[in-house]
Each structure stands twice: as C-alpha cells, then as structure tokens.
C-alpha cells in the first residue's frame, strides 16, 4: 500500500525556539492497508496514528435513522483508558461530528480509531489534526476541514503556542481551539486553568492565524497524494 509522506519544517520552529510558532508538522496518509482511510500525523515529537472505517455497517443499538453515528476510540500507548481519555474521546467525537456531513449516510457508522504513538505536549490538538487527515484520506463527506491549535499562558501571562510537555507543566492556563476551514470560525474549545476574557480573545486570534498554516499543510499533503 503506497504511503504518502509530507513534511513542513523550514518556516516552523525546530525545537523550543520561538514560542509563537507551531512545531514542525509531518504526516503520512494511507499508512494502513485494511482501513478505509488512515494517517499518521506528528507535530514536533508528538505523534498520533488514526484509522477511519466507514460509512459502514452499524450496530442496531447505535443506529440513527437520520444520520451516521460517529464513534471514536482512543488507544493509549500503555494501560487502560481512564476519565481523561474518555473526555478526549468525547471532544474528538463532537469535533468530528460537526465536520462530517453525517446526514448523507443515515443508518451507517463511521468508526475512528486513534492510537497514541508519542505524547510530548499539545496532544489533543495533534489527535484532532490527525483524524482530519485520516478522514480526508478516507474521502468521508465533510462540510469543511478541522484544525486544532493549543496555546498556553505562563505565570507572567505570556502566550506560548503549541507548548511541549515541559512547557505545559508550568502553565497557568491551557486552551485548545478547533477551527473550520471555510471561514476560520471556532467549532470547539477546551480550556483548563484560569485566565481573563481578554487573554482568551488574544489566544483565540493567535491560534486562528496558526490554524491557517495547518490547513495549508493539509492541502499540500493531499495534493502530493493525489498528484501521483
């Protein structure tokens, strides 16, 4: 099965250089042979692998008569999933459900499996981006693309975009925003810690600018795959 690699490095920070840039992204689509679509996606050292199956056969209990049911399973590197992972699954599912044109496939299931490969900070955003790539590869009908960006505020109130795990440990607030590609509007936010509403707005604007780079990266990766 041919895999399509794509990197974007030069204009992004290599490691812990400027706090206002995204870490370099790297992605490979159609990595798995049995799934309908798959992608591995990494931001810096953070890496996730997603597989999309569907629209396929649905269990009777999960069947919805007016739209496709979207299921997300999050697989950890080790151990059993706890509350934190269940919340991540829920956020991922809601974000995907917003993007997928689910009404086109009533009484079907779209199953998404995400495998954690390496977590080095801003992992949920990496997962969302990874799932978006996998859905693009699977040609699931979508209203728009989604891209997620993490940003944090440290004790001095400075903004750090796409923080690493060590940077994450001394943040006072962490925010994750997911944007859609047609008007760059927010479709999901997830925040922890304390911050003022002004700080929130500033983070929102910075992350929106950063999301445009991710959308461009999606486009470049798919163009490379489809030009073969």
């Amino acid at each position: 099965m041919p895999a399509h690699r794509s990197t974007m490095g030069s204009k992004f920070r290599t490691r812990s250089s400027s706090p206002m840039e995204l870490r370099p992204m790297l992605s490979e689509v159609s990595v798995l042979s049995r799934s309908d679509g798959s992608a591995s996606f990494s931001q810096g050292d953070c890496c996730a692998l997603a597989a999309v199956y569907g629209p396929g056969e649905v269990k009777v209990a999960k069947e919805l008569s007016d739209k496709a049911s979207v299921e997300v399973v999050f697989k950890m590197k080790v151990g059993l999933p706890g509350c934190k992972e269940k919340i991540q699954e829920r956020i991922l599912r809601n974000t995907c459900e917003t993007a997928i044109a689910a009404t086109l496939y009533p009484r079907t299931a779209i199953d998404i499996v995400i495998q954690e490969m390496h977590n080095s900070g801003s992992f949920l955003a990496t997962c969302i981006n990874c799932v978006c790539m996998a859905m693009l590869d699977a040609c699931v009908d979508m209203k728009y693309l989604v891209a997620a960006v993490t940003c944090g505020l440290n004790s001095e109130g400075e903004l750090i975009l796409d923080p690493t795990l060590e940077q994450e440990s001394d943040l006072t607030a962490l925010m994750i925003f997911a944007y859609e590609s047609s008007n760059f509007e927010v479709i999901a936010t997830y925040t922890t810690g304390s911050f003022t509403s002004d700080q929130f707005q500033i983070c929102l604007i910075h992350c929106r600018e950063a999301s445009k780079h991710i959308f461009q990266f999606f486009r470049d990766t798919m163009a490379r795959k489809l030009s073969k």
Partner: protein
Amino acid sequence: MAEVGSVVLPGDQVRLMINTEDSTRFVTGPGLRRDSDQVTVSKAGILKHKEPNIYWVDSRQKRYIPTKGENVIGIVTMKAGDVFRVDIGGSEQASLSYLSFEGATKRNRPDVKIGDLVFGRLLVSNKDMEPELVCISSNGRSNGMGVIRDGGFMFTVPLNLIRKLLSSDCNLLKTLGHHLPFEVAIGMNGRVWVKGRSVRETIAISNAISSAEFMDNMQIKMMCNKLVDALTGFT
C-alpha cells in the same frame, strides 16, 4: 475558488463555468454539495468537468457507496425466505430475490448457496432504503449476470482502479487478453473476479490488475509483456 483540474478539499467553493443559456441547469456529481447558488466540495480529490455542465470530484475512496444502476460483485451471506442477503461492501447488505434470475420461476428456483459470488446490478439504491440487487436485465435476459461458478479468484482493489479499468482509454484488459485468454467480472464496488486457463495464469492476471493503479498505457504494455515472458519461461 477552485478551478477544474485542481486538487480540492472539503469546504472549498467551486466556480462553475456554465455554457448553456439556462445557467441554473447543471449536474453536480459525487463530492459536490449544492446549497442555494453555491457549490461546495465535500471530498478530497480532483475537480473534473465534462461538457456541457457536469461537475464531479474524482477521489480515491476505498469504501463503496451503493449507486443505482451499477454492476457489483456480491457474496451471498444469508437465505431468508424468498430473498438472499448479499454483501456488496456497502454499509448495508443488499437483498436479492430468487425470482430475479434468468429463467427462475416459483417452481424452478435458482441454485444459490451461502458463500456464492453473484454478479448483479443495483436496481434500488438510495440512502434511506435497503439496496436491491437483480441478476436479470429489464427484458428478462441475464446479460452475463448471475452466480459466478467454477473457481476463479476474487480480490478487492480501490474504487478508482475499477473506474480506470472500465474506462475506454485504459488498455489493460485488452493488452492482457492479447496474450492470455481469461474471464473477468468487474464490480463497481471494488471487487474483481478473474479466471485464467490455470491457477498460475489467474494469479498472474490478478497481480497485473492490482498493480496497474498508477500506470499509464505505455507502462501497462511493458508490464504485460514482462508478465507474459515470465509466464512462458523467458525471464
């Protein structure tokens, strides 16, 4: 605004070039959604256009979405009263009535077993209903449809390869057929059944088909020549 021939992603707006006087009449195929006067892309692929005003997105999908009138290869999974359930690779199993075979009557039932391959046409297929398969044309003839018997080999390929095999500018089947006689059934659901004179030839043909996805006609010719040489012992 995306142009014809370029790579498009979900959410992109498409500008349609409408040549006829009646600008409201145009056909949007798979991968395009129309809301009021705007056309939005819903699948990643390459935007294609056919005169006068047909537009669609050519994508590399693996999952089959049943479409009315398409020929598919299915696997019989269940016998339920007077219908068979057939797996056609979509989200739901298709139903196939025992009367929709050539020459079948209530007395004279067709000989169909669970696990058999059937080559049929989708009579009913829309998102709200169960797909229905028939192995008979509207004038009562089988037209090559029905249960596929006597061995052979069935394998699955991406849907874009199926479209390539069936298009008139692809010479793969013709070139292969010059050298080796074989039978083939191609389903739009990504399933291909082939049968050569021997198991060896069947394997060779199936390998040739599944490797042709990204080849152009020149490369296909070369590949076929190599294959025939290898089969006859000139390596």
